[in-house]
């Protein structure tokens, strides 16, 4: 670092402050020059004197006949050292320069500047050393004069005497006496023991681990961030601080770590009160994990269902849909969420809740949860019927499986248009049993589908199972004999139906009754029909 670099730094700061003075705000180009100049001296601390600026012992600005008038008020306000942080931005340099430019040789201005520094106004970009200001010189340097009888400062001794009810004899050395006699004053007569029980050799009450834990929680950045963001949302005066987008980003970052139901409640309530700032924040708040994190937090909050209902009403349809899906997904494994979901369905209305869902993207666990939630409702068929055409294939059995057996067949007509799609290895393994369990009505639905499709795509096992169910329900003859005799139906399906018919002699007889078309049937079917007839003989 050469003296020339140091002077360049001084001149760059001077120029930035003066341009701020001239233009009313700092000029970014001058800010860039200052940043470069500071980097050239390795971000060395800048020491403020009354009329000079220094880097170590080198004068950066002032000295000799050159007067830098703006330095003196800053020195009087107590600023002594400024060191830029590694992360300092040009904007922060400009802001500092503007504050320096604002600092006038007036007490009020000095106090404002000092309060700004003391309040961490420059803390994001700089480390600052602040000493006692000139305004505080008397009480810091001549403390007794601050309360001296001649009223050096306002109020003085008389004020102190009045406050302490005259018990302390505040003469020339009264403060000294009061301070030195504290131990005596602090003595409790009844025990004749000193209150000052602390001694250097005593172990501390607080274990260091406890201190560290408390310290960590107090200084955790995400906690403060959440605390601040909440205040900004609630206090319009603070909203000038941040754009909704920036606040949304800040909230999203913190909510990922500490999901806070109250903040969501505040946000949703504000949106519902038509607060445009909150609306913009909520709009920008979305992040992939939000719905899952939210419902998890709501599950463990006594007021979770109310907040969730508020949230669903406040957010965009797309986000509301994701939250609703997350709720169903959570309800599949967390009973607390089942309760919340039931409350939400009650408060929003089932129709409205279902409308939030993106039905084609319903996952199997979500579908199961939805079925369970609606299972007890008398209007389950009316609610779910319209969905049947859109529920994805893998989710359908889960949805139907969660419904009572007597409800499932009633939904079957809604599935009519999907039989071609649902067949092909799927129906027999998952869907068919659900209908078959539903009894005669369910079996009839399936049989009608089987008939309509001429058994196309159905597996032998599935057809056999359905056939047995129809035999049991007394519907086989009515529904399946036409299939057994139909040339359009695959031979394997027809054989499987014959297998099922074997369970009931009467049905077996009806199926195996000879007819001329049999001559054109495939050999395996003819063989199976023959075997049925052979079985029939011994029975007779």
């Amino acid at each position, binding site marked *: 670092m050469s003296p020339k670099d140091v002077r360049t730094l001084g001149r760059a700061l001077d120029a930035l402050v003066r341009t701020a*003075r001239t233009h009313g705000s700092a000029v970014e180009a001058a800010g860039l020059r200052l940043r470069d100049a500071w980097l050239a001296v390795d971000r060395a601390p800048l020491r403020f004197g009354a*009329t000079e600026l220094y880097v170590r012992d080198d004068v950066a600005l002032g000295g000799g006949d050159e*007067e830098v008038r703006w330095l*003196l008020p800053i020195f009087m306000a107590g600023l002594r050292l400024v060191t830029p942080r590694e992360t300092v931005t040009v904007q922060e340099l400009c*802001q500092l320069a*503007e504050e320096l430019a604002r600092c*006038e*040789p*007036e*007490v*009020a*201005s000095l106090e404002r500047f000092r309060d*700004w520094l*003391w*309040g*961490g106004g420059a*803390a994001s970009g700089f480390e600052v050393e602040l*000493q006692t200001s*000139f*305004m505080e*010189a*008397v*009480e*810091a340097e001549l*403390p*007794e*004069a601050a*309360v001296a009888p001649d009223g*050096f400062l306002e*109020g003085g001794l008389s*004020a*102190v005497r009045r*406050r302490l009810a005259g*018990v302390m004899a505040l003469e020339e050395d009264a*403060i000294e006496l*009061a*301070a*030195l006699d504290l131990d005596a004053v*602090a003595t409790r007569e009844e*025990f004749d*023991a000193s*209150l000052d*029980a*602390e001694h250097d050799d*005593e172990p501390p*009450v*607080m274990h260091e681990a*406890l*201190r560290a834990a*408390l310290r960590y*929680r107090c*200084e955790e950045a995400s906690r*403060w961030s959440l*605390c*601040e963001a909440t*205040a*900004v949302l*609630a206090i319009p005066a*603070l909203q*000038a601080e941040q754009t909704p987008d920036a606040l949304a980003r800040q909230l999203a970052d913190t909510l990922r770590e500490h999901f806070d139901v109250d903040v969501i409640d505040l946000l949703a309530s504000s949106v519902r009160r038509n607060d445009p700032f909150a609306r913009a924040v909520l709009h920008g708040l979305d992040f992939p994990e939000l719905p899952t994190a939210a419902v998890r937090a709501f599950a463990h909050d006594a007021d979770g269902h109310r907040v969730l209902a508020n949230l669903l009403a406040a957010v965009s349809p797309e986000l509301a849909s994701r939250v609703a899906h997350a709720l169903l997904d959570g309800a599949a494994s967390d009973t607390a969420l089942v309760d919340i979901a039931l409350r939400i369905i009650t408060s929003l209305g089932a129709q409205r809740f279902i409308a939030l869902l993106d039905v084609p993207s319903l996952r199997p666990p979500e579908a199961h949860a939805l079925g369970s939630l609606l299972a007890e409702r008398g209007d389950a068929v009316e609610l779910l019927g319209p969905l049947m055409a859109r529920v994805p294939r893998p989710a359908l059995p889960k949805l139907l499986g969660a419904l009572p057996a007597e409800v499932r067949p009633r939904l079957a007509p809604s599935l009519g248009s999907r039989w071609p799609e649902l067949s092909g290895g799927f129906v027999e393994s998952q869907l068919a049993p659900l209908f078959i369990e539903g009894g005669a009505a369910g079996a009839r639905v399936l049989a009608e589908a089987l008939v309509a499709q001429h058994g196309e795509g159905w597996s032998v096992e599935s057809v056999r199972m359905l056939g047995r169910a129809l035999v049991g329900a007394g519907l086989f003859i009515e529904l399946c004999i036409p299939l057994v005799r139909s040339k359009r139906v695959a031979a394997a399906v027809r054989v499987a139906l014959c297998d099922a018919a074997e369970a009931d002699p009467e049905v077996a007889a009806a199926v195996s009754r000879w007819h001329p078309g049999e001559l054109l049937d495939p050999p395996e079917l003819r063989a199976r029909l023959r075997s049925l007839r052979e079985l029939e003989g011994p029975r007779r």
Partner: protein
Amino acid sequence: MSDSLTIRRTSWMPDDAQGRTARMMVERLFVLMRTLAVHGPSHPVSVQIAQAVADGIAAAELPFTLQFVRQAVFQDHALVMFDPGGFQRSLRVASALAAIGVQQIAVDHVPSVDDLIALGSELASGHGTALQIPGMQLRAILAGQTGTAGETVEPARFAAVMLLRSLMDAEHIEASRGGAWPWSRGAAILRRLERATDADAPTSTRFLEAAPGEFTVPRRAVQATVLALAAMRLVGLDVATRRVGGHATLAVALTGLRPRGGDAFPAAATRALDQLRSTLSTGRSKIDPHRLRTCALVHDAAFRPEARSRWHPVARLMELVYEHEVLRCPTDASFDLGAVDLLSALAPRSFVQDDPGWLQALAEIVGRWAPGMKVELEDGEAGVLLGGSSTKPMVFTGAAVKVGRAAPSLPGVEE
């Protein structure tokens, strides 16, 4: 004085009328001192300069007092502003005055030219002779007491003064209760309390507690702030967090405490927030982090009064020290509680359990084994603590005074 925060195109030259006399005096005394050093007292130029000093005094509003404290000059207790040249000259004059044992000049009427030449000669030579000048009193201000933050002043005394000044400021705020929050005055109180703690921490925590006199609302509010600051310091929080916690505590305590008892903490926080937010705007593009965080902390307690466990931990400390001062002056009793009673009374309160660490911090600050505390000894016998140290507590069990071998447990606090 400029009220707005717009950057003004001025020359950074002081133009306050109040300091004009001081600037004139400094300029002319400086010239007189230099002239006398070069030409001596009988030279016509010296006489001419002394006359100019006298003329300047005659033109000023009398009486006036000038104080020279370190690098600052005060006229009638108000800080005087200088341009850089004037500032350098004020330092020279202050140094010359200090050399003859003077920090204060009080002027009642215009002194004679001869007396002014005598004063100038002493300033030039640096030899004081306890000069007596009619119309002008020269005196030291408590000579030998200077020292930043208790550097040379006895620390306990320094801390006591800082606390008393804080108390006076708190009374100013309390006098305008319900109005806008004076951030600058609040910050000044915090700075004084910081200086007091830096100088002498034990005195800082015990002075307002032990000093006689009525426990007024401002006194209790400052004491709550002192305790909060001390607890945060003990835990090792950074200075910015301590300032935020301290300021928030002060605002809530000054708003919520009553002559006896006080409002519920969340209600006090709500009202404090109204005051704080009404003066938030500084005219700057950004509100400084201190104000933002102070509001955020108070808001945290105000906006979810029932969800204490979700408050920021510093807000829970605020509640603890606030309740400490509410309990100090019970509404249903005519007497005030002391530190020991307060600690014992706080310990079983449910809200303490959310952050028992804060109560332990408070216990460490107040004194671990405060006399009067009910304790249980290792042998199961219960008694009242009389004193002693933590390793040898004296416990009155009814039948005898025993010296315990082990430290008893704090009530309500898990070790």
